[in-house]
């Protein structure tokens, strides 16, 4: 049994989503997929080291942090929408050069 492929697949999907999707909600989904991959990796590493309780407790904290990050991100998205009435990353190009 080996779950690493799934971890890497989740990471690949997350990065793919971040690279190509141009909607901020989709960007959020990409970041979420990365976090879920990382959480899965935590649990799986606990199984490998035969200390599942330990990594579970880490995973719990990681999930809590993840939510906080998502909340801040959504607040930022909201603030951006207030200014631009848009969720499109193509509109986020004022700062460059």
């Amino acid at each position, binding site marked *: 049994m080996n779950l690493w492929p799934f971890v890497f697949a989740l990471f*690949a999907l997350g990065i793919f989503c971040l690279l190509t999707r*141009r909607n901020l*909600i989709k960007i959020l989904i990409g970041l979420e997929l990365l976090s879920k991959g990382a959480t899965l990796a935590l649990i799986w590493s606990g*199984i*490998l080291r035969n200390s599942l309780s330990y990594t*579970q407790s880490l995973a719990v904290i990681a999930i809590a942090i993840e939510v*906080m990050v998502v909340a801040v991100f959504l607040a930022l998205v909201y603030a951006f929408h207030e200014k631009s009435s848009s969720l499109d990353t193509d509109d986020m190009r004022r700062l460059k050069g």
Partner: protein
Amino acid sequence: MMIYLTLGFLLFFALLAVFLRDTLLSVLSLATVSALLSIAFYQLNSPVAGAFELSVGAGLITVLAVLTISFLQKRKEKKQPGAALWLALSLALAALVFFLFQALWPQVLADIIPETSWGEVGEILWKVRLFDLLPQILVILAAVLGILALLRKEGESKER
């Protein structure tokens, strides 16, 4: 090997979450991904993480995201050209990393998943990992303050 089935579904819904044009639907797919992940955790004998993932990941995040979307009323995404190429590239990259990982890192495959209980996890969380408590509280405090700051009312700050 139910776990592979669960994770297979998980990947399918993740793909949906990425590719669906309607953002609301893709957020719901993400919620399904979370739910499936918590089932996978359960199957991996880690009920605590599963419960957290289900309540927080599938529940809270979805609620927040759906609320935001419904506030902002922007559901359709523009069509993306050349997505297949990017998908192929990222998957190829991940496959490469994974292959190297397998080839260069011989690992022990554990087929026996240890049993864990709520009590044990709680004990570790409160005894061994107690020193994570302060940063965790602080992160939550910071996030709350940050959200308050970002969603505060009124006020035009001058060019500065």
